[in-house]
């Protein structure tokens, strides 16, 4: 027998500890692990046997989190890293080097955009950004040096729904993998591997943790992509001098990517997760199904309220008929289109500021996916340097507000929104 999602969220990856029977996952707060004898030590180093050696490479607490996320996503395994950014970097650094090229959706979290557009070119990896809704744009951007297609399951800031089945099919036609950033959807809303994606990463900092106490990232391998057949990934299909001359895809048919990422990327770049963080994130993952259900229920109420409010010019949520990806969202995201969305006030920047300042329950900060409701006004914070015209070009209006709907009482949230809307109307 096999277990269903909600059971896996609580149990996958952990059997009660054999020494003391601890039910909760123990926090193995140790840098290193004692070898049984010299033979075992040698066998571990040479991958003749599996086990933990040093917590930069692997740790039993982290391993529970890794297995759990892999189980929830339906993948073959995962690697826990220091942050969502570290997960994205680890994936790219494992797949390619200088001279390589990425095709990415232009609707990305700012941090991902920075990495691709400004930082990686310094290391010889360049990116072409495309409108995620334009399949022809994806196709024409692919070049001989392209090694990865990348997008967010729900794009930033317009919640473009990535058409994973079609973009994945296009990627596979070209012998390329599709990686998605699943932070906004979590495996509870959608499992991208089921739709054809090959790699997934999460900023676990957000919904997976849910409590807003820990920064972390998870990189998950779907195990379906055939690196040998593609022929474009020598890091996975040719002997690696840096690790016993190992040919990773010979070593592991389905997990060559994870093997190289752990044995090279974690080892050399070192962006590992603390076992303490892994424990904290596990506490969050246990209640992911319950929390996501509530996030979505509250979001639907907030959206319904804002849509009909006279101070509101528009609401961007894929469940609304007027959202460009409405039909796609119904197909790929039947359980809900996340709990982060933007709406636009009829007033401009000034209305936005007044709205934010009047709120009491929503916290004004730069994060999403917390159990607590959050709010930000891009025109006066993340994008404050941009002119009104530049903002509009980026899909943001001077009066645009981004909400991350939390788990509070829906009535209290709506009352709070009303407070803000009343203040905005007077601006």
């Amino acid at each position, binding site marked *: 027998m096999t277990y269903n999602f909600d059971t896996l969220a609580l149990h996958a990856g952990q059997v009660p500890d054999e020494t003391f029977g601890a039910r909760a996952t123990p926090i193995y707060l140790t840098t290193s692990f004692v070898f049984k004898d010299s033979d075992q030590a040698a066998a571990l180093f040479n991958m003749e046997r599996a086990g933990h050696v040093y917590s930069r490479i692997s740790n039993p607490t982290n391993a529970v989190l890794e297995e759990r996320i892999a189980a929830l996503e339906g993948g073959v395994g995962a690697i826990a890293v220091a942050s969502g950014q570290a997960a994205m970097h680890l994936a790219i650094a494992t797949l390619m080097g200088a001279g390589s090229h990425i095709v990415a959706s232009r609707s990305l979290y700012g941090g991902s955009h920075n990495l691709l557009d400004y930082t990686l070119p310094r290391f010889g990896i360049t990116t072409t950004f495309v409108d995620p809704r334009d399949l022809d744009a994806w196709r024409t951007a692919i070049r001989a040096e392209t090694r990865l297609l990348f997008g967010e399951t729900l794009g930033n800031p317009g919640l473009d729904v990535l058409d994973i089945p079609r973009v994945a099919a296009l990627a596979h036609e070209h012998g390329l993998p599709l990686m998605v950033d699943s932070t906004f959807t979590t495996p509870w809303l959608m499992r991208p591997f089921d739709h054809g994606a090959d790699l997934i990463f999460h900023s676990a900092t957000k919904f997976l943790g849910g409590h807003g106490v820990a920064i972390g990232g998870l990189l998950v391998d779907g195990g379906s992509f*055939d690196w040998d057949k593609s022929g474009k990934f020598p890091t996975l299909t040719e002997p690696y001098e840096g690790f016993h001359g190992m040919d990773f895809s010979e070593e592991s*048919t*389905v997990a060559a990517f994870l093997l190289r990422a752990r044995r090279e990327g974690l080892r050399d770049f070192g962006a590992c997760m603390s076992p303490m963080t892994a424990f904290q994130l596990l506490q969050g993952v246990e209640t992911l199904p319950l929390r996501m259900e509530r996030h979505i229920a509250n979001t639907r109420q907030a959206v319904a309220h804002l849509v009909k409010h006279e101070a509101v010019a528009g609401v961007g949520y894929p469940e609304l008929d007027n959202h460009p990806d409405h039909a796609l969202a119904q197909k790929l995201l039947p359980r809900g289109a996340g709990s982060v969305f933007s709406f636009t006030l009829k007033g401009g920047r000034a209305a936005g500021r007044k709205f934010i300042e009047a709120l009491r329950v929503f916290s004004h900060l730069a994060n999403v996916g917390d159990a607590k409701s959050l709010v930000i006004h891009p025109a006066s914070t993340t994008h404050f340097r941009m002119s009104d015209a530049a903002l509009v070009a980026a899909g943001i209006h001077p009066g645009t507000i981004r909400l991350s709907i939390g788990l509070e009482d829906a009535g209290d949230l709506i009352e709070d929104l009303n407070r803000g809307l009343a203040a905005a109307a007077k601006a």
Partner: protein
Amino acid sequence: MQIEINGQAAYAYTGGKPFDASLPCVVFIHGAQNDHSVWGLQSRWFAHHGFAVLAVDLPGHGRSAGSPLPSIEDLADWIELLLERVGAGDTANFAAKTVSLVGHSMGSLTALECAFRHPARIARIAMIGTAVPMPVSDVLLGPAKDNEPKAIAMINSWSHSPRGTVGGNTVPGMWMLGAARRLMERQKPGVLHNDLAACNAYGHGMEAAAALACPALIISGSRDMMTHPKAAAKLAAVIKDVRSVSLDGAGHALMAEQPDAVLDALRAFIV
């Protein structure tokens, strides 16, 4: 390494070391719908401790070309051909038999039949997750023929113990059920039904076992629902020189669920 057998490209993983025919040889034979990679945590150790390792991809599986072979007898002859081709074991010098066959499930039947048909080369066999005969019910054979995803899901759920179903993988960060499923999904259409039908049709295994001229090791999982430990016990009863090891709590996917215990049992038997 690539080897040509019957005019077709075959692949065998050599455990991270070049194959050296002058060393005693251990051949690892995977089960239905699998490939060499199920042996990672057993084969690498032997390759680095004085053995020449061949963890094969059977014809039509993994990296080996061609169609899957339709019977256990054909598989056994293919293993013999492979040994001849790489020069493992010296058939002229019967006393110097140096080849050990290690098989899982369908591979365990292949090892048995190979030792039965070609006794001159085989020093010993290890049968892991085995039952002789190995009947496969229509409940599984049916979907294996016309609904492979369903058959794969059934095999995956029956192949793991209650503990393995939850996880706790020895390999950090790997989700056993997911990896097992993807590996099965990698095989070509038709392979699964071919393999299961071959297991089901293998009729004279008990005679082969009774006539076995070399020592045998049987490793069974106490929670194996695919090849029940009771069947392994019946098999052990007819083999002249046999050693049995039961792994407490393990299901059919023994090499993944208890990799160290499987390796330790193989070491004690082969080294």
